[in-house]
């Protein structure tokens, strides 16, 4: 009897002991795995933050081997490969993810989006386009896919499709895409103008104005069309409207505007406009234009007096060069030679200077671009205001 009691007590005691042992072993095993995984993850993250992408890839590859189900790790790896320029590896990785059975739809569409970006990076635009179109049709990550599609159409200069997709993006996200659409219409207008289809160009410009009422580029193109048609009064109106729309583009607008003033014999209006501009715009372009105007109308002395007074208020290398040019005739001997050296020095200084800078990415350019060659944003390249620039 006493032995049976012992047995009855032994079984629950053994049960409890077995339960406790198994629990402890399980916790230790999973804890070790988790800590190893998380330490690897943070190590990878640390490499990424330190811009050591090679080492980060090594760590993430190890992580992906540990757990073949970790989709996020594979996505991060694919991203890294793409950023390092190893597009073929990124494509293989994302293709593998897409074809993996049992992957949920959300993750599959993310992998498809990434694959599309890989194709874009590799220059396989037709494949990327097909993928992004599918994503838009599936309504999965549609805004991102639409943005990529717009980028592809911009690259292919297919402005009609770009406009169509920009419109869809605007409807979908509610974000204002009209400035970008106005630029696309301007591109179409410019193309028509170059092909001699002037009435078509005017139609596109009307659509550009309908998209963005104060589109500087559309005003400038309108001015150019009028000027080429010999309608200089209308050209002056358009160029002046361009300045009103965005005063930052004065350095680009002034040369054709001054030409139109001259051809339409409206130099009085030019002086009045430039005088008004001096208060609103702090660059050197209107000063130089007025100096030139005074020199032609009143002679060198008045022009130099005006320029000297203005340079005291807004010092500028370009202004100083004009001043040296204007006073060079009046001096001779050693002083003239010194002035010539100074002038040459300033010319070289200006040669290496970027005159325009993108307000988004900081890309510096000597000539104006409506679309930034670096970040591909529209109308973000503006004249630099400084002593050596505008």
């Amino acid at each position, binding site marked *: 009897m006493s*032995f049976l009691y*012992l*047995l009855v007590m*032994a*079984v*629950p*005691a*053994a*049960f*409890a*002991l*077995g*339960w*406790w*042992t*198994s*629990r402890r072993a*399980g916790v230790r095993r*999973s804890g070790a795995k988790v800590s190893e995984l998380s330490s690897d993850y943070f190590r990878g993250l640390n490499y990424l933050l330190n811009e050591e992408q090679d080492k980060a890839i090594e760590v993430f590859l190890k992580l992906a081997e540990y757990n073949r189900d970790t989709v996020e790790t594979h996505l991060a790896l694919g991203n890294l490969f793409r950023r390092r320029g190893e597009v073929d590896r990124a494509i293989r990785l994302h293709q593998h993810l897409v074809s993996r059975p049992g992957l*949920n*739809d*959300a*993750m599959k*569409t993310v992998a498809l989006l990434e694959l599309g970006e890989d194709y874009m990076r590799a220059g396989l635009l037709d494949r990327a386009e097909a993928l992004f179109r599918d994503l838009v049709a599936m309504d*999965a990550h549609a805004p991102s896919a639409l943005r990529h599609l717009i980028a592809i159409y911009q690259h292919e200069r297919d402005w009609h499709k770009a406009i169509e997709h920009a419109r869809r993006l605007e409807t979908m996200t509610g974000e204002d895409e009209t400035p970008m659409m106005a630029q696309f219409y301007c591109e179409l207008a410019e193309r028509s103008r170059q092909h001699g289809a002037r009435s078509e160009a005017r139609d596109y410009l009307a659509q550009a104005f309908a998209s963005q009422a104060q589109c500087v580029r559309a005003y400038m193109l309108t001015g150019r069309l009028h000027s080429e048609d010999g309608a200089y009064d209308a050209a002056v109106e358009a160029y002046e409207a361009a300045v009103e729309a965005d005063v930052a583009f004065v350095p680009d607008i002034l040369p054709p505007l001054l030409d139109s003033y001259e051809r339409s014999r409206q130099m009085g209006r030019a002086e009045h406009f430039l005088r008004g501009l001096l208060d609103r715009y702090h660059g050197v372009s209107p000063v130089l234009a007025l100096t030139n105007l005074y020199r032609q109308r009143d002679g060198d002395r008045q022009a130099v007096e005006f320029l000297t007074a203005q340079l005291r208020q807004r010092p500028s290398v370009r202004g100083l060069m004009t001043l040296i040019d204007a006073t060079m005739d009046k001096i001779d001997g050693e002083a003239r030679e010194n002035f010539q050296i100074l002038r040459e020095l300033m010319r070289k200084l200006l040669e290496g200077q970027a005159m325009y800078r993108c307000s988004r990415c900081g890309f510096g350019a000597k000539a104006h671009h409506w679309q930034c060659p670096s970040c591909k944003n529209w109308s973000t390249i503006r004249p630099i205001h400084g002593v050596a620039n505008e």
Partner: protein
Amino acid sequence: MRLLVLLLLIAFLAAGVLLGALNADLVGYDLGFARIQLPKGAGLLGSLVIGWLLGGLTAWFGVSTGHRRQQRKANKKPAAGA
């Protein structure tokens, strides 16, 4: 540490053998559908082993079920968010 565990293991093994030898007399068990006769020591050891195994299996089953449930929840989250 490993040596200590080894010594303990040998001591318990010796104790088990000694207990088995001292309690070699047979005990009858009526399981309802069958009647079996086992030495006392083997009966004790058998019930300890069965109890320990059952406890371990129960804990393992509980932990793995919990993990599976968490995994399923984690997989569902992104799908719901998309």
